[in-house]
């Protein structure tokens, strides 16, 4: 049984300082790697997959540890983290739409 929830409500989110320092250091490392992707002119799928990987790692660490989401109740996690998933549909639709606009423009300009 999760008795942590009641404890947290009284005392707030208390965690050892070491965990913040570790996450802090990791964020620096991942940011440096992100920058090095550009510095070494990686390109194509390798570049894009590395950018996305480091981006998600950093975002995950910030939300989970710095914003304390890892220690919240599952009900709050669901309420905050699930709704943004519908944005993936928007992104997908707009990517298709952008492609269509691009092809339409090419067809119009080449005529």
């Amino acid at each position, binding site marked *: *049984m*999760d*008795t942590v*929830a*009641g404890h947290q*409500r009284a*005392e*707030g*989110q*208390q*965690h050892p*300082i070491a965990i*913040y*320092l570790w*996450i*802090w250091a990791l*964020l*620096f490392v991942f*940011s440096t790697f*992100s*920058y090095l*992707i*550009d*510095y070494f*002119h990686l390109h194509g799928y390798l*570049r*894009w997959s590395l*950018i996305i990987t*480091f*981006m998600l790692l*950093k*975002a995950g660490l*910030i*939300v989970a*540890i*710095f*914003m*304390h989401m890892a220690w*919240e*109740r*599952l*009900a*709050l996690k*669901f*309420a*905050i983290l699930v*709704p*943004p998933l519908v*944005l993936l549909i*928007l*992104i997908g639709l*707009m*990517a298709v*739409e*952008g*492609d269509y*606009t*691009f092809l339409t*423009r090419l067809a119009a*300009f080449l005529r």
Partner: protein
Amino acid sequence: MAENALTTTGESAPAGLPGVVADWSGDKQAFPVPWGKAMMWIFLLSDTFIFTCFLTSYMNVRISTTVPWPNPSEVFSLNIGGTRIPLILIAIMTMVLITSSGTMAMAVNFGYRRHRANTTALMLITAAFGATFVGMQAFEWTKLIREGVRPWGNPLGAPQFGSTFFMITGFHGLHVSAGVVYLTVVALRVWRGFYDRKGSYETVEITGLYWHFVDLVWVFIFAFFYLW
């Protein structure tokens, strides 16, 4: 389990999926967190949608333009000591924002330990890093405007570059600026002992949520606008 669903203390609330059911069906407050924290999370959720709409529109215009997109690596490079270093200003800005996020996390931690002086100092340091970030962004904007980048066009390539750049970084910069004010106000309240009298430092954590979100958005802007 029926007993657990009816408890209001949260002391024996079940974890995991049964916990979700219990929290929502218990005829009680669904989220056992301070209301300010729940509201901040919901505000940040709405902000997530706004920033995603901006980044999605940026993706859309970048895909659909027939003019070559300016290379961010070159556009945002700086001449330091005679050598051209790609994207260096943005890298420094990223580090400044991450540093500020770290000091903010420490401030929240010290707040819950009731270290008034440490919390105030760390929050003011966070605000100072935030102000530094906005200053560097102003420098970046000035540089690009001098080079002829405008929201309606630029000499480097696709005109959509200017409009999306000013809109996305401008809106993020506005968030950082608002955060600096927010942090300063709360820091001064911490210093005056307002939260000691109130008996809770949760406002510091709520302020921290906002600040970490600003850093979070920058992670996505950095990846999609500057690195892509």
